[in-house]
Each structure stands twice: as structure tokens, then as C-alpha cells.
């Protein structure tokens, strides 16, 4: 059965999406027809080291009001024009998730409008599809916390491959810190590696760990850091070898999933999707299989509120909302446990 597409004229209203799974606090406003009116973000930057969940949560609480008000201002709408509130219900860091959830519950309850709990991974896939027009892709979702190859089969996004240990973004972040490099404010650590790697040319062999469609990055990280400490190979060449190895692994598992599922499209989404070398590898691979390649636009690659709003709208259309008293955050909410009833309708 194929329903007619729902566009703005059919249903009037707006959804506010609140994202707070990790270091970003974001608020996005999207019309029910899918037009993004605002997408505001504020990132917690630790003094040193990685994300401290409680400190990140404190940051989120501090900026929540400002970010949400700014998103409404940019969307040029008032609170009374919101028809639903969506929030990232998981997976993510507990204290951070709870901060966003608290704001979302308060607004939904005050405005007496439905609350929608969104799976963060589903949101990354949906915004990628929405922004690129991809219909039924094999998706590589890569970020600081996730590395997942998935594709839609029978009601859910099935996970075909994932990391067995750390996420690729995490691997890049830790490498950058261990190398004593510091990313400027607002710049992703992966970007730093990308820039150095572009100047490297001599390849040194590093652990390449692909197990079926799963991956492991911890051995690669350890070896790359030791290689750097030995100081026999220059930083540029280490970055080059590190990046080539990590991204070749990612492309290989995506290729395997593509061959296995026999789909015709490849979608790259998540924070690490902004890396040009990774984009180039996947594009080449997709071409060789006659598949269409798309990458999420930059403004939606990192965590953001608009993607939560959009996934919230899709859920809400299918009547999937969550009563406030049941809106607990789910720290370990797996992608492949979420029913996505809207996908079938959009495929045809």
C-alpha cells in the first residue's frame, strides 16, 4: 500500500527537536512537511581530555534555554505554533540525555502537546535520507560514539556490521589527543587528522581488523600511537597511514553489506561523514557496484536538533509518541530494536 506523501499543506505545524546525547546540545525546528526552519547548536568543549558526562550535562543545562529560544527565533515562530516536542531518548551519555529529556518533558507538558522519544541513530539515518533523497540505502553511520552499517529490512533498520570495541570517531579523537594535537574550538579532531594526512604519502602498515562485517579499532589506535611515539615516521605519514587503514576498513564492511543486501544506494551519515577522504572512498566503492552514493550535508552530519525533530515527525505521523511518565532515557538503546513503520510507505 502506498500512501500519498504528506506535505506542509496537508498538515500544519512544527516539531521542536532536542538533541543532547553527548557533547552537543541542539535544538531544531522542522515543519511537519519536512522543511528545516532552524537548527541551533552549542558544543561543550572540555578543558582537557574527552567528554566528562556530568560536566557536559551541566553545560547543556546552562545553554538549553538560550539554544531553544534561539531556534524558535530563527524559525520565526512562537511556542504556540509547536505541535510536538521530540527529544533524543538514547543511546548516549546518561546525564546528558537526562538534561535534554527534562527540557523536552517540561515543554511538552506546559504546552500540552505530544512528546516523541527519538532513537539518535535512527535520526542520523532519517536526516541523511531526507536531505539527500536516498530511499533505501545501506547506511554507514560513523561518529564519536557509533560505527554502524545498517539497512532497512522488514520494519527495522537491521545492523549488518558494527564496531566490536571503540567507534571510529572515538579512535580519531583519542589519537589526536595522544599525538598532542589540539583542535581549535568548533573543529572536529578528525579534521585535524585529515589535514595532516593530506600532506602524508609514505604508507606504514597498521592493524587492519575486519571480522565479517564487523570492525575493531582498538588495535589500530594502539599501533598508530606507538608508531608516533617511536618518532621514526613523521606525523603526516602516521596520520596518512592511520586514516587510510581506518577508512579502508569502513569502506570494506560497507561494501560487504551492499553486496549482501543487494541494495542500490549507499548513504554516509554521522559526524565523521564530513571527512572528504572517507567520502571519496565510499563514492568509488559505490560506483564500482553501480550504486548511488550520497552523503549527509555538513550541517546535519554532527549531532543536531533538526534530525531529532524530523525523526520525531516521522514517528508522530505513525502515532508513536511517549507519555511523560514513560519517557525514561535509554542509554543503550540499540538501533535494531526500533520499529520504523514509516519506512515502507516512503520507499514506494
Amino acid at each position, binding site marked *: 500500500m502506498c500512501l500519498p506523501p504528506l506535505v506542509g499543506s496537508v498538515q500544519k505545524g512544527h516539531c521542536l527537536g532536542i538533541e543532547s546525547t553527548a557533547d552537543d546540545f541542539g535544538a531544531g525546528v522542522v515543519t511537519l512537511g519536512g522543511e528545516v526552519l532552524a537548527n541551533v547548536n552549542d558544543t561543550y568543549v572540555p578543558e582537557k581530555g574527552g567528554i566528562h558526562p556530568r560536566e557536559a550535562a551541566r553545560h547543556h543545562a546552562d545553554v538549553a534555554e538560550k539554544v531553544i529560544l534561539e531556534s524558535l527565533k530563527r524559525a520565526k515562530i512562537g511556542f504556540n505554533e509547536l505541535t510536538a516536542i521530540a527529544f533524543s531518548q538514547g543511546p548516549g551519555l546518561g546525564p546528558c540525555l537526562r538534561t535534554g529529556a527534562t527540557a523536552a518533558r517540561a515543554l511538552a507538558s506546559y504546552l500540552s502537546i505530544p512528546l516523541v522519544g527519538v532513537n539518535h541513530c535512527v535520526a542520523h539515518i532519517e536526516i541523511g535520507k531526507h536531505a539527500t533523497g536516498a530511499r533505501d540505502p545501506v547506511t554507514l553511520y560513523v561518529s564519536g560514539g557509533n560505527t554502524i552499517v545498517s539497512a532497512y529490512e522488514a520494519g527495522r533498520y*537491521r545492523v549488518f556490521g558494527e564496531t566490536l570495541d571503540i567507534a571510529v570517531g572515538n579512535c580519531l579523537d583519542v589519537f589526536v589527543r595522544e599525538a598532542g594535537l589540539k583542535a581549535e574550538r568548533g573543529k572536529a579532531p578528525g579534521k585535524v587528522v585529515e589535514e595532516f594526512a593530506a600532506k602524508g604519502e609514505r604508507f606504514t602498515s597498521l592493524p587492519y581488523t575486519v*571480522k565479517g562485517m564487523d570492525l575493531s579499532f582498538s588495535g589500530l589506535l594502539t599501533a598508530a600511537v606507538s608508531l608516533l611515539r617511536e618518532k621514526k615516521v613523521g606525523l603526516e605519514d602516521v596520520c596518512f597511514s592511520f586514516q587510510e587503514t581506518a577508512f579502508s576498513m569502513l569502506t*570494506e564492511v560497507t*561494501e560487504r553489506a551492499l*553486496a549482501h543486501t543487494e541494495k542500490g544506494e549507499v548513504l554516509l551519515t554521522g559526524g565523521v561523514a564530513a571527512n572528504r577522504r572517507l567520502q571519496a572512498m*565510499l563514492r568509488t566503492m559505490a560506483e564500482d557496484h553501480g550504486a548511488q552514493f550520497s552523503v549527509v550535508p555538513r550541517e546535519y552530519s554532527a549531532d543536531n536538533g533538526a534530525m531529532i525533530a524530523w525523526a520525531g515527525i516521522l514517528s508522530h505521523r505513525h502515532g508513536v509518541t511517549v507519555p511523560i511518565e514513560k519517557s525514561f532515557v535509554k542509554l543503550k538503546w*540499540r538501533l535494531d530494536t526500533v520499529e520504523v513503520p514509516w519506512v515502507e510507505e516512503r520507499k514506494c
Partner: protein
Amino acid sequence: MLIKKGAEASLYLEDWYGRKAVLKKRAPKRYRIPELDREIQSRRTKHEPQVIHRAQEAGVPTPIVLFVDVKEATIVMEYVEGEQVKQVLNGLPQDERRRLCTHIGEHVGKLHSSGIVHGDLTTSNMILTPMGRVVFVDFGLSEQTWEAEARGVDLHLMKRAIASTHFMHADECFDAVMAGYRKSAGKKAMDEVLGKVSEIERRGRYISER
């Protein structure tokens, strides 16, 4: 004649001195830099026939290797008549499906008991012959190891492959696989590997039962 263009390699149907054979050619991957690509291709081409031979010694049906050319990343193997288990499994009646899975599990148990980890235990890599034998193919990602961790990952991958491709019967199929595993590898080995599988699952990101 090209019979399958897989992710890793292309398979061609060839006449090998009067015998029906499959030529497996690992095509260079344009997305990888040549240094890395050559390293991976030759490592896998050398390794695969060695493990196939070991699997045969362990009593697990595999195609017979006829010829290897590392430089060209090519392996010529016996052609196995039959269908991929992936294609037939969902359509089988329950008892037959269970029997097939048990049979597969027995072979996986034999591999593991001989220090072989397949590395890509999906149902596309198992061929069901018209005589009802299951032939294991594609040892390209296999390892020879006695580490319990590797055996755990092997079965974890299989469990997940079943869950994504045969989701209607996933639990039933995996239970049957493990029953077969127990038959050939013994209860101790089965308990150990299942312990590892759940350890790996818990280690994974975002697992509810921790």
C-alpha cells in the same frame, strides 16, 4: 563466465582441464591505496588455500583447491553444485530448517575444535548440495587460532548474520546451530564459546542487559 560479483572477489565459472571449476579473483579495490590493497590481497590469497586444506583435514566439506596465483590474487577451486543456505533457509519447514542448522553447527564445531575460525559465517557462505551436504566456502577472512575470543567473535557474527537475514527464525536457528556445535565440539567447548558470545555482546555498545 562471471557467476558472482561479490564484495571481496569475483567468481568465474571456468573449464579447468576438462573439469568444472570456479576461479576466484580478488579484484584490486580502487578505494584503497595500492600499497595497502596489495598487502591485503596477497595476504588473503595465500592464506585462504591453507585454511581450506586444514578445514578438509578437520572433516568439514570445502571446495578442493586446484591452483593458486598470489601475484594475480587468484584461486581456482572445484565448482560446488547447490544453493546458498541463505536462499533456502527461510523457505524450509521447521524440522528441516532445524536439522540444517544443527548440521551447520556440527561443522562449525569441527572447525573450532581444529583451531580454525571461519571469520565470515554468513549463510551466503554455505552451499547446500542436492545431496544435502553443506559445503563451506569463502575462507578469505579465516584465522588459525586457539583463542577462545576468536571463536566467540566467529559465532557472534554468525548469530548476528542470522538475526539480520533470517529474523523470523533467528533464535530457533541459532539454538539449533549450537546444538550441532555441542555434538561435535562437546559441552565444555559449547559453554565456553557461548560465554564468550554473551561477553562480546555485553561489551558491544548499547546492549540493554548489562
